[in-house]
């Protein structure tokens, strides 16, 4: 809708007046044939009710509206107007085309965003500054944040439920596939691949570990120690189909030829540094998984990997 004509200095040419709102044209558009000009907002509103020119009723659609000629735009931009904030004390007189820039910065604008100087750091409209109370505002802020936090927590809980549901379904599905693969070779290949990928995914989720003292290796761990390691593996998400095999491989009796006795171990000591080791969370133990160590010699590796337990020296 157009600018109030009373804001302008001197007389305004009748051609610059919108016939709909009777204000000075704002963002003008013209009808294609008759060239009658209107504010964009005014003519759009009118056409939404009736697709005609409001002056002579020729058919017009919004799509047919055109920009007004440059000469008309120039006449408009040269008009001198007062600022919107006259009621708040602004006495500036501006060319119409610089009004928008002035309004963005006008210091009399009661809604101009101002930073609070009292220390809360919030940015608030100028006219609300006098009423502004840092504590109250921050409390309100905390309240809304807390509300959001509660919402997020609830959402998280719901997501967890969904994930558990999915896990259960997945386990069921795996069970199903295990049953199927006995009879179906294609299914067997697929299931093998899924299992391999599961191991790789799990391996990727574990942190790298560095062994500083290979000499601390316990080659014959007792049952209690083995149980502890197994629990930790299980909690880290170790795929069920390898966990028992892995745990078997924590004792020298199942280790590969290169590791199976104190003597061979001493001979191959320099090869240890080639191992990519993964941390067994919370324990002085590492996993040397086959999928991480395809570069290692055969006599130093077994399927699906090794578990090495240490007295100390794991980083």
């Amino acid at each position: 809708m157009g600018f109030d004509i009373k804001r302008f200095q001197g007389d305004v040419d009748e051609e610059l007046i919108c016939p709909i709102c009777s204000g000075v044209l704002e963002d003008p558009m013209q009808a294609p044939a008759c060239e009658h000009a209107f504010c964009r907002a005014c003519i759009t509103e009118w056409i939404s009710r009736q697709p005609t020119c409001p002056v002579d009723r020729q058919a017009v659609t919004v799509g047919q509206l055109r920009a007004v000629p440059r000469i008309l735009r120039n006449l408009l931009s040269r008009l001198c107007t007062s600022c919107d904030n006259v009621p708040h004390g602004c006495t500036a007189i501006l060319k119409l085309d610089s009004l928008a820039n002035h309004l963005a910065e006008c210091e009399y604008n009661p809604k101009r965003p101002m930073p609070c100087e009292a220390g809360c750091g919030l940015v608030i409209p100028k006219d609300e500054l006098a009423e502004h109370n840092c504590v109250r505002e921050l409390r309100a802020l905390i309240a809304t944040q807390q509300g959001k936090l509660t919402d997020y927590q609830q959402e998280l809980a719901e997501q967890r439920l969904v994930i558990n549901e999915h896990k259960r379904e997945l386990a069921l599905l795996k069970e199903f596939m295990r049953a199927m693969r006995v009879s179906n070779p294609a299914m067997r290949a697929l299931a093998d691949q899924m299992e391999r990928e599961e191991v790789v995914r799990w391996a990727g989720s574990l942190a790298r570990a560095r062994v500083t003292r290979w000499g601390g290796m316990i080659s014959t761990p007792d049952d209690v120690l083995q149980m502890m390691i197994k629990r930790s593996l299980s909690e880290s998400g170790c795929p069920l189909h390898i966990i028992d095999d892995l745990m078997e491989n924590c004792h020298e009796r199942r280790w590969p030829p290169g590791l199976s006795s104190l003597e061979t171990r001493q001979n191959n000591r320099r090869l240890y540094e080639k191992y990519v080791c993964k941390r067994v969370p919370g324990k002085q133990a590492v996993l040397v998984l086959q999928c991480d160590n395809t570069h290692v010699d055969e006599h130093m590796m077994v399927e699906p990997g090794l578990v090495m337990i240490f007295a100390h020296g794991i980083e």
Partner: protein
Amino acid sequence: MANIAAKRVKREIKEVMKSEEIMGGAFKLELINNSWTELQGEITGPPDTPYESGKFLLEIKVPETYPFNPPKIRFITKIWHPNVSSVTGAICLDILKDQWAAALTLRTVLLSIQALLSEAEPDDPQDAVVARQYKEYPSIFAMTATHWTNVYAEGKKAIVDYNRRVQVLLEMGVEEHQARVALSTHNWNLEVATEELFS
């Protein structure tokens, strides 16, 4: 009231005040309240018509959506015209309905209503009784319209015969306007009007 409507009405009133029509006494326009939603207009009956020298008051209601929707206008002064209801004063005029255009103003609307008094459109009637009389008994219509103008709109020309017939019914105890409507409706046939009133 919506900003745009109030601004338009303010400007239009100013425009009317400056216009020649006010100077020449063809019509008047004034505010009823300060919210710019209700105005009262007055148009003078055009010369050489049955409405000559009559002063007709109009009720003008400006909707919030003005000028995207037309003003609602009706005659307050009773008038005998095919396009105006003799009962409610409602006006049948295309620009007050589907031919409204946002660039039309109260001034142009009042001028159109005045033009309607000069040239009725009996094929698009608001009052069927009046329209039929207009077509079938043009001279009776003209005298009836003149009579109503004289009685209700301070028109200068009196129809003495019609006044006399109304007087007859008045003496029979009939209310004046009721008597006039009955007589006007029945082409001033006293017998038929009496029969209708007392049946």
